[in-house]
C-alpha cells in the first residue's frame, strides 16, 4: 500500500512523463522486493557468543546461537501496524461498559452481532443437551460424538447447511451437500481455497475497500498475493470491469500471475449488495481470463435493505459459463452470531477442489459435538425462519438509528443493504484530505471521542476519510452516547 500510493500518481499521468517516471519507480520497487527477499531472517539482538553456564550435558565450550523460526513465521509475531488491529487492541485496554466504565472506548471495530442473542440463548437452553447427548436408541452413546468422523463434516450437517444457506439466500438457489466442505470457521475456508486455487506467488484480484483480515488469512501461509482493484465512491464502491481489466493487465506486466478474483457480497466494509449485472460481469471477466471466482457470502443472511441478495451460485447455475471456476465461502459467525463455535463452509462447483478441500479439512475440522448442535439448530426450520426475520428487522432498525444519528451531525454514510456495519464518510472532519489526515482522525476518535472505528486505510480504500462502524453489538441507549461524543469531536475539529 505504502509504495502503491506514490506510484498511482505516476500511473495516472500521461505519455513521456508516465514512461519517464514509471520505469525508475518500478525499478526501485523491484529493488526493494529483491532486497527484502534476500535479507536473512531478522537476527536476534541478543545473539552474542555465550559462555557456558549451563549443565555439563550441554556444555560444548563453543557458543550456541539462538534458534530461529522460519522466514515466513518471522513477521507474524510482530505487533501489527494495521489500524484495524491497533484499534481492537486499544479497546481492550479500556473497554466501554454501560454501567461500570461509561468513559471507556466504544467498540465499533468488530463486525459481530448480539442483536438476537436472546433467541439463540433460549434455543440453546431448550435444545443443547439433547442435540449432543441424543443417539438413536435414546440413550447417551459417546461414540456418536467422540470418534473420528469424516473431516469434511457429517453428512447430516452438510445437508442441514445446504438447506440453511438456501433459505437465508431467499430460497432462489439450492446447494448440493456433496459440493460442500465444513470448515472450522470462515478463516480456514478462505485459506484452504487460496491453497487450492493459487500457487505461492500467484495473486487474487480484490476490489477495495476490503476486509483487513484477508491480509492475514491469505498471506500468512499460502504466499498468495492480493492485488487491489480500486473502487470509488462515485460508483458507491462497486467494482467495474474496466477496473478489473486494468488491474489484471498491470499484474501481467509485472509478471504476476492472477489466479482469481476474491470479493465479498454483501461487501465488507461498505455493505453493498452486488447486482445481478455486476455478478454476471465478474463471472464473464473470469471466464475470459480463465481464472477463478471466490465469492465470500458470509453476510448473506444479514441483509436489511430493500435490494435482494443474489448468490454467485445462482449466477453460476444460469448459463454458459464454466461453473467449475466458482467457489463460495460462508460461515455462521455473522448471520447466526456464533463465531465461537467455529463453523464455516467451502462450496465449490469444482469436483477436484471439493476433494482436495475435504482432505485438507483434517487441519481445520469442526468438533463433532458442535456439529451435532449445529445439525439440530440448522434443521429447526421454524426457529431459523423466526430468527432470520427478527435479526433482519433488528439490524435494519439499528441501522436507521445509527445512520440518522450521524446524518444529524452532517456525517453521511454510503448506501448499504447488508452486513453489520456502515461505511461512514468522515472526510469533512479531516484536517488534510490524505491518508495522514485520516490516521490523525482515527487517533482522535480513539483518544478523544473514545470510539474505535476502522479507518479506510486499513481496508485499502483509496479515498481518505471513510470509516467502518459496526453497530450490531450496540444497545439503543448506546447510540445517543456515541452521537454525543461524535458531536463534541466534530465541533472541536470544525471550530
Amino acid at each position, binding site marked *: 500500500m505504502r509504495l502503491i500510493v506514490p506510484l498511482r500518481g505516476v500511473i495516472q499521468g500521461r505519455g513521456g512523463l508516465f514512461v519517464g517516471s514509471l520505469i525508475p519507480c518500478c525499478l526501485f520497487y523491484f529493488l526493494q522486493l529483491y532486497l527484502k527477499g534476500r535479507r536473512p531472517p531478522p537476527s536476534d539482538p541478543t545473539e552474542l557468543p555465550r559462555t557456558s*553456564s*549451563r549443565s555439563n550435558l*550441554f556444555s560444548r565450550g563453543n557458543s*550456541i*546461537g*539462538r*534458534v530461529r*523460526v*522460519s522466514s515466513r*513465521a518471522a513477521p507474524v*509475531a510482530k505487533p501489527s501496524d494495521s489500524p484495524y488491529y491497533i484499534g481492537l487492541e486499544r479497546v481492550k485496554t479500556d473497554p466501554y461498559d454501560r454501567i461500570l466504565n461509561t468513559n471507556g472506548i466504544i467498540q465499533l471495530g468488530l463486525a459481530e452481532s*448480539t442483536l438476537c*442473542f436472546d433467541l439463540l440463548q433460549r434455543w*440453546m*437452553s431448550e435444545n443443547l443437551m439433547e442435540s449432543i*447427548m441424543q443417539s438413536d436408541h435414546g440413550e*447417551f*452413546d*459417546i461414540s456418536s460424538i*467422540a*470418534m*473420528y468422523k469424516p473431516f469434511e463434516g457429517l453428512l447430516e450437517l452438510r445437508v442441514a447447511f445446504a438447506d440453511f444457506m438456501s433459505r437465508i439466500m431467499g430460497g432462489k438457489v439450492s446447494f448440493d451437500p456433496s459440493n460442500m466442505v465444513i470448515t*472450522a470457521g470462515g*478463516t*480456514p475456508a478462505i485459506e484452504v481455497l487460496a491453497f487450492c*486455487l*493459487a*500457487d505461492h506467488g*500467484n495473486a487474487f484480484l480484490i476490489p477495495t475497500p476490503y476486509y483487513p483480515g484477508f491480509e*492475514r*488469512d491469505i498471506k*500468512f*501461509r499460502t504466499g498468495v498475493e492480493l492485488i487491489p482493484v480500486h473502487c470509488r465512491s462515485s460508483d458507491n464502491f*462497486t467494482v*467495474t470491469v474496466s477496473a478489473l481489466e486494468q488491474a489484471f493487465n498491470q499484474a501481467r506486466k509485472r509478471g504476476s500471475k492472477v489466479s482469481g478474483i476474491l470479493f465479498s457480497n454483501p461487501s465488507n466494509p461498505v455493505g453493498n449488495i452486488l447486482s445481478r*449485472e*455486476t455478478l454476471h*460481469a465478474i463471472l464473464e471477466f473470469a471466464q*475470459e481470463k*480463465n481464472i477463478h471466482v471466490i465469492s465470500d457470502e458470509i453476510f448473506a443472511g444479514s441483509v436489511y435493505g430493500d435490494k435482494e441478495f443474489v448468490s454467485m451460485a445462482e449466477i453460476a447455475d444460469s448459463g454458459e459459463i*464454466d461453473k*467449475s*471456476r466458482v467457489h463460495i465461502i460462508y460461515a455462521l459467525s455473522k448471520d447466526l452470531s*456464533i*463465531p*465461537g*463455535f*467455529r463453523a464455516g463452509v467451502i462450496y465449490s462447483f469444482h469436483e*477436484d*477442489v471439493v476433494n*482436495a478441500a475435504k*482432505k*485438507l479439512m*483434517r*487441519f*481445520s475440522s469442526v*468438533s*463433532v*459435538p*458442535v456439529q451435532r448442535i449445529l445439525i439440530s439448530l440448522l434443521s429447526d426450520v421454524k426457529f431459523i425462519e423466526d430468527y432470520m426475520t427478527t435479526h433482519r428487522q433488528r439490524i435494519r432498525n439499528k441501522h436507521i438509528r445509527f445512520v440518522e444519528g450521524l446524518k444529524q451531525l452532517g456525517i453521511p454514510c454510503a448506501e448499504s443493504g447488508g452486513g453489520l456495519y456502515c461505511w461512514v464518510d468522515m472526510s469533512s472532519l479531516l484536517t488534510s484530505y490524505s491518508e495522514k489526515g485520516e490516521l490523525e482522525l482515527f487517533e482522535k476518535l480513539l483518544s478523544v471521542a473514545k470510539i474505535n472505528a476502522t479507518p479506510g486505510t486499513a481496508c485499502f480504500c483509496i479515498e481518505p476519510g471513510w470509516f467502518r462502524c459496526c453497530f450490531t453489538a450496540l444497545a439503543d441507549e448506546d447510540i445517543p452516547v456515541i452521537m454525543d461524543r461524535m458531536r463534541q469531536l466534530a465541533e472541536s475539529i470544525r471550530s
Partner: protein
Amino acid sequence: MGLPLMIKRSSNNNDNKNNVVELSRVAVSDTHGEDSPYFAGWKAYDENPYDETHNPSGVIQMGLAENQVSFDLLETYLEKKNPEGSMWGSKGAPGFRENALFQDYHGLKTFRQAMASFMEQIRGGKSRFDPDRIVLTAGATAANELLTFILADPNDALLVPTPYYPGFDRDLRWRTGVKIVPIHCDSSNNFQITPEALESAYQTACGANIRVRGVLITNPSNPLGATVQKKVLEDLLDFCVRKNIHLVSDEIYSGSVFHASEFTSVAEIVENIDDVSVKERVHIVYSLSKDLGLPGFRVGTIYSYNDNVVKTARRMSSFTLVSSQTQHMLASMLSDVEFTEKYIRINRERLRRRYETIVEGLKKAGIECLKGNAGLFCWMNLGFLLEKKTKDGELQLWDVILKELKLNISPGTSCHCSEFGWFRVCFANMSENTLEIALMRIHEFMDRRRKF
C-alpha cells in the same frame, strides 16, 4: 453511479470454453498419500466392515489407532456429573453468550489451565506446564503442521526417526513444502535413535543442500508402541543444541504408557535447564484424541518453551481454532482431578492388559513383537514369513493378510521402516471379543502355513 461494462463475447472465443481453469500444485499433488497401501486397506474395510453380529466374516480394522477401551468411564462421567447439561453450558453456566462470541485465539483460560493440569498428571508431576505456553489447535494433526510452518521454510527439512506415523508425510509436507529426511533406526537396538544415525541423517541432508531446521520425534513412538529412553532424549537435545535446530516431541500417546514410571517426557529433561537458548528450541505436541479417546472433539495443543513460537502459533491458530463450546465442555472435565486421576490409571491398566493379550496370542502363533510399553498398537515381526525381504515381498504378505485373513494392518514400508516384514497392529479400537477373533484368524493362518 457507473454501470459495469458487459464484456462482448467474440464469436471465436471457443478457446475459453475448452480452457479448463487451473488448480494449484497443492491441490493436485498426491502428498496427501491416500493412494498408498496404508489407506488402501481402509477402502477394503469400508467396503466390508466387520460387525460382531451382522458381518462376522468382514474385515477387522486393525489399522486405526483409536482408543475405545475406556469409553464407559467417559460416558458415566458425562451422564452423572452433568445434570441438565450444565457442562454443556446450556443452563446459565458461564454463559452461552461468552462461548458464542469467544473466538480469541488465546483460548479459554480455564481450558488451558485444565490441559496444563492434565498434562502434568500424566507425567506424574515430574514437570510443570504453564497454561500461557499452551496454544490450542483443532487436533494434533494441525499442531504438527502449524509447528512445521513456523519452524521451517519450503524446501527445508525436518529429521524424523523411522519407522514413523505415515500421516507425517502428509501433515508435515503437503502445504508446508517442507521435506522429511529419515533418521534410520533398526531392530538391532529396538529401533532406538543413535547419535550416529542422527549425524548420518544430518549429513545426508547437507549433502543434498537441504537445510535442516529440526528433529521431530514421537514419544511414545508410533508405530513402535515404545517409550523413548531418557538417555536418547538427552542425546537428542544435545544434538539439536550443537546443530542449533529445533526439537519437536509429539507426546500424543503419553497417557497411554502402561506403567507411568517408564515414560520420560522431554519436558522433564528441560525442566531443570535455565539456559533459554537451550530450552527455547523445544516444543511439545499433545492432543486428547488418543489418551482420552476423543478424536472427534478435535483438540490438540502446541506447548512451546519459545516465546516467539508461542506468539506466532497463537496467531496462526486462527486457521484451526477449537470451538469455544468444546473448550468449555472439556475444561470442567479435565479440571476434575478425581476423575482424571482415575481415568488415567484405569486406561493405562486396560491398555496394558490388551497389549498382553495380543502379544501372548501372537506368541502362541509363533509370532514375535517388539517389546512395547505404550500406545494403542504393537509392532509385529513377520519378517520370517517373507519370501523375499523386499518392499514387494512385504506388500505381498500384507495383501494376503488383508484378503485372506480379512485383517487390515499397517505395513512397515508405509512407516518408512528400513527393515522389511514389520507390521503395526492396533488393538484398542475394538471389543475384547473382536480381538480374540482376530487372533484366531491369525492362528489358523499360521497353522495352515505350518502344514506346508
